[in-house]
């Protein structure tokens, strides 16, 4: 195989893990946007919090680790998958509680009010994480086999197990989500409320409670994204800020109300982040965020509602 082509393939493989992370967080954003029409700026930070919960459950009691003894009291250290599962459940509950406490009372007010709330949550959760667990990066155990030899040889390029694992996780989650939304009664109610809240309410659906499930699902997805992110790099309080920006770009690219668009947007953003700096020397690694955002702006100019989004029409 041609060396240049091989390198390209290798780079695409390298981008896969990040793509999966962006896609899952973008999906979380899209779920909330679809149902309530708002952007959750705290999505990334809430996810980081869940990742720290997972970390505490993994480590158990340790000197200087906030909550360690509490975790030990309920049986920590847990195995990796169990700890992350518990953290995802924790994240989901926290998301639901957040919605109930601070988002629902303000749903009828202005857009800016809800955005301010999520910005306030963003600041609050972020600084709580920093306060409790410090800013130093921590080693998060890998979810998948991640030794130097753990890769699949595809035409000479190395496809790492962790990338396969990340995508497998994402696909399983997608399948579960699709099943939830398409095949269950609750999912039907959720779709009905997202489609037209008033009609849904008139046909007896309790829209407020249904919308809370949107937050629960989104927060669970975010927690998975954070666990993936932490296991692919390091666990630190600011890790999801960058990811959040990419996820916003991915969601915009795909269309803010399209789950399919979020996945494809995540892949495009992940690829552009790796490939563009590699082939355009002008853009160094420092600037890897730039191409993703330029792509986003171009898409907005050409197709304002994103690649898969619904064009909004307004009756005058």
């Amino acid at each position, binding site marked *: 195989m041609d060396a240049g082509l091989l390198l390209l393939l290798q780079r695409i493989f390298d981008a896969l893990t990040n793509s999966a992370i962006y896609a899952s967080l973008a999906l979380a954003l899209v779920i909330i946007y679809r149902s309530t029409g*708002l*952007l959750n700026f705290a999505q990334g930070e809430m996810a980081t919090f869940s990742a720290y919960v997972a970390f505490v459950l993994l480590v158990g009691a340790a000197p200087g680790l906030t909550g360690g003894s509490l975790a030990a009291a309920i049986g920590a250290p847990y195995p990796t998958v169990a700890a992350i599962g518990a953290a995802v459940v924790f994240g989901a509950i926290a998301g639901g509680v957040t919605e109930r406490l*601070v988002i629902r*009372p*303000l749903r009828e*007010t*202005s*857009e*800016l*009010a809800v*955005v*301010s*709330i999520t*910005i*306030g*949550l*963003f*600041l*609050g*959760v*972020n*600084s*709580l*994480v*920093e*306060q409790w667990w410090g*800013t130093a990066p921590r080693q998060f155990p890998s979810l998948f086999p991640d030794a130097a030899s753990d890769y699949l040889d595809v035409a000479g390029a190395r496809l790492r197990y962790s990338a396969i694992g990340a995508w497998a996780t994402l696909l399983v989650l997608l399948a579960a989500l699709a099943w939830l939304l398409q095949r269950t009664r609750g999912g039907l109610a959720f779709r009905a409320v997202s489609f037209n809240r008033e009609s849904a309410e008139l046909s007896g659906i309790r829209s407020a409670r249904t919308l809370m499930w949107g937050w629960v699902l989104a927060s669970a997805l975010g927690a998975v994204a954070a666990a993936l992110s932490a296991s692919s790099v390091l666990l630190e*309080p600011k890790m999801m*800020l*960058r990811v959040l*920006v990419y996820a*916003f*770009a991915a*969601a*915009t690219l795909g269309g*803010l109300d399209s789950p399919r668009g979020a996945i494809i947007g995540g892949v495009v953003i992940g690829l552009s982040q790796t490939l563009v700096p590699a082939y355009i020397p*002008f853009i*160094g690694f*420092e*600037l890897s*965020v*730039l191409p993703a*955002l330029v792509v*986003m*702006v171009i898409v*907005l*100019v050409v197709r*304002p*509602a994103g690649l898969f989004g619904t064009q*909004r029409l*307004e009756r*005058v």
Partner: protein
Amino acid sequence: MSSPLIVVSKGDRQHRQWNTLYWGYAIALAILVPLVLQPFQIGRMNRAIVMIVAVLAVNLVVGFNGMLALGHSAFMGIGAFVTASMVQDESWDYWMIIPLVLVLGFAVGVVVGLPALRVKGLYLALVTIAQAAVFPTLVNIDELGIAERTGGPNGKKVEEEVDRQVDSLSGYFEFLPGVDGARGADAYRYWIILFITAIVVLLVRNIMRSRAGRAVLAIRDNEAGAAVYGVNLPMYKTLNFALSASLGSLAGLLWCLDKGFVAGQDFTFLLAIELIIGLVIGGVGTLQGSVLGGLFVVWVRDLTKRISIPMGFYTLDGDGPLSNAIFGLILILFTFFAPGGIASMVTAVQKRIIQVVPLTPAGDPITPLERLDPGPSSTRSAWALRLAVIGPVLLVIGWVLMNVDNLIVGVFAFLLRFAIVVLAPIVVLVAMNERLGARAGLRGENAAAVTSRATLAGVIGVLSFAYVKTFALNLALRAHHVTHLAREAVVTDGGRERPVVPLVSEAAKYKDFKGTPGEFCSSGPGGEFNDWSVDELCGISSEAIEASETPVGWWLIAWPTQSLLALVLSLASIAVTLLVGFRYFVFSNSNLEPAKAETSEREDATA
């Protein structure tokens, strides 16, 4: 709702007088800032005023046009870096850069805004987030000499600060309060920034009253409706966004002017969030809101950093990551309980005190105004009593806070104590008026209650006013006395006698020294004056200084002129309050009688 304390017709003499009073206090505060605050506090004030411009820029888009923009940190960054580069590399003067920065910001605003503003919804928010996220890395690009100009990751320092201009121009600007002595440079910057900010606020106010401004507001209120009435949506949205970007860049220029150092990490997404916080807490869509919000983000951030509450095994420490959590909490609380921000709270209070009745379409005052006057069922004496109690309570809170060893709390405490200077005369005058009214039989059945309440309020008002004024005069006179001594004093330096004043201004760099003057001389950094005998330097301290508990920094920079000016200002404030208040309240009783007669006539007519 109880009726307001005072009813005036828009634009008449009384209204003008109240406006004069309001602006008088605003200007007096503006003048007191460089005189009373210490240099580093003036610097923080400068930062706050810069934030006012930035929050105002965000307000143009978010508040007046109803679009969500989260990327003004990048515009500020552009303005700051361009300024730093032009001053440092090209030796331009600051005033020459202002048009450049405005035009540049406008152009960038058009480029960023045009794609996002074509679509409705949150897309502008997304594009601007992207812009805010990418900006800090953009300044590090090596190509095109960008990193060289911006200083890359190390940031860029502006060596030629305004200090140079202060030296060359000080002859022209010495008349500005505070532009001399130890804090000349900071005070000089303060006046420049304040001047530009005032122009910007005025500009925005006028634009919002113009045809274009009304179009922008119409788009916010009803986009489809505005389009139907022929408003060119993309054009007005883009122009408004570009204007906002251009003001954001101007804020960046002021930032650079104030700080003399710019770095990419100062202009991150977090700064953009801080601007939004300022906007929401100050009050969305109002000019006052921007002003209050700008002051809030800087001063309250400073305050939360100083919180330190021991809670058993755990210390709640505001100077750390938690300062952000406190900010987030404040933001959430405001969104819930005061969605209109501080501005709406101020307006609510103001409405209960004074009601301005608009003119008729022909421009005449509505007559009779007295119909709006509470008349015999007046609750004024109740109000006066309330104010009379609030004043001393504020005074006590201020006094307690004054004992917290913390300068910001001190400033807050000063403001609380200042409130009584305003409240007390109003209380006294209202009480006097009510007593007169009751005696003249204008308060109907309430007369007895009104009289007793008014008497009580008046007594409390007089006592608290007298107490505060005696205290303030005493302090001012002592400061004047001590600094006068300092100016006259000489020390022996290597056999030569020389005046102490240069020494004192040098000692001003120890302004943060928290001990008493005695400690300063014996064990504090005063020992560093090796060339001069420490005993001699400190020998000038009169007994007043020695005995004083006031931190030494205060004495070192309290110049005689300033303490005198503060004295004059405080006397003037008393005079103005008395004059305006007296005029209104004494004549208002005579207003009531014809009104009563007229009302009864009208009742007769209808009957």
